[in-house]
């Protein structure tokens, strides 16, 4: 896949998401605390535009009835059926793991560059 300049860094402030052209459904760029991630805008479950879902946290637990809120800002929740995905890897939180396709991202001369 060819590398492409898809967005100026200053056009994707921290905490923001932006859809850029790519693939059949577009690619979602996420700026999480200065790190940029690129996810295919297609949920592996039922084909929803997954990148349009809320960015949120999730819960962790040691034993029954123990629930702690963790990883605020790291989790993308699909807008259709609520599946949770780790933005940095595209992997579902629930097992068995399903994966949103991700693209390598580089910053070159103030541009966000992705392969794909």
């Amino acid at each position, binding site marked *: 896949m060819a590398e492409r300049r898809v967005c100026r860094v200053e056009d994707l402030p921290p905490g923001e998401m932006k859809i850029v052209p790519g693939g059949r459904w577009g690619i979602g760029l996420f700026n999480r605390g200065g790190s940029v991630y690129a996810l295919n805008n297609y949920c592996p479950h039922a084909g929803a535009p997954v990148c349009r879902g809320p960015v949120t946290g999730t*819960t962790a637990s040691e034993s*029954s009835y*123990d629930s702690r809120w963790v990883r605020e800002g790291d989790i993308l929740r699909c807008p259709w059926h609520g599946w949770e995905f780790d933005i940095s890897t595209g992997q579902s939180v*629930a097992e068995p793991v399903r994966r949103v396709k991700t693209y390598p991202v580089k910053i070159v001369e103030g541009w966000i560059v992705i392969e794909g």
Partner: protein
Amino acid sequence: MKADSTVDAGVSVVDTAVHPYPRDPDEIREYMRAPLSKLRFPGLDGYFYPPPKDENRADSALDGTAGADPDLARRQLFADTGVDCAILLPVTRGLLPDVDMASELCSATNEWLAARWLAGDDRFYGSIRINPADPTRAIAEMDRWADHPKMVQVAVPLQAHHPYGQRMYRPIWERAAHHGLPVAVHADSLGGNEFWPTSVGYPIYYVEYAAQYPINYVVHLMSLIAEGVFEDIENLVFVFADGGIDMLFPLLWRFDSDWRALRSVTPWVKRQPLTYLRDHVRFCSHRLEGPSDANDYARWIGEIDAEHLLMYSSNYPGVSFQPADAFAAVPPALRQRVLATNALQTYRRLREFD
């Protein structure tokens, strides 16, 4: 549960659900303590819907009561049916409003079972009846019997006021697992304060009731999974002794699907719900109807993971009695697992049987 291919040598048929009955209530009363033994208590024929025809095999009766004669049961199971050993699961009185009476009836039933049935034949194994509405006494009753070499499981009613995953039951299941005793859930006779048989009202006919009532086990199973009981108690096993495995999978597919969307609400459920079955759940086989064609039947029980989850049970002396040759058309390796191996791996104490 750990797979162990060496345990089934020499045993060809284990019957995991046989129901012994007292000839009359006084046979149980004999083992009760005063003053409760002085009081009246319900008989064993209380049901939402009394069976309109015989509930039990007419040829199994002693003095008019089916399943009440150990000698006859021995002949009909071991000689006529080819069973090598049988797990006895006596019914009690369901949800009696008086929890002390309910617990006393459990204790007396255990005494009666040990004296009248287990002592008389090495091939009979037993179930410890406990009353889950009184966890303290249920635990004491388990502790009282846990070292008995013929008691292989704990038994509780299918009827309940709260699904079995809920937290008030947790100490009971922890204790059962501590003793290495699986927990069998089976529809009981009724004591008086059971809920409606369905949440949308009373069906008219017994045939409706008989077909749908056992499906309530799914409520217990989903509760056990959702409340993390199987996550927290590593070696706990539930045996659903009214069958129903063939009704399970479409409901668990739905449960799995919703769990993926709602996982964060119950983060203690670490695994896809369906994946808890092999480690924590078994089903008895009677009332496994399946397709009527023999080849379709053999394929069907492969698809419901009978290889790991299903254990043969006759349900003697019930009229839904299932002989072991019901599995004659099933491939031999799978048949062996259903008829013996799965039970021998579930009930460790059966391994001493030869």
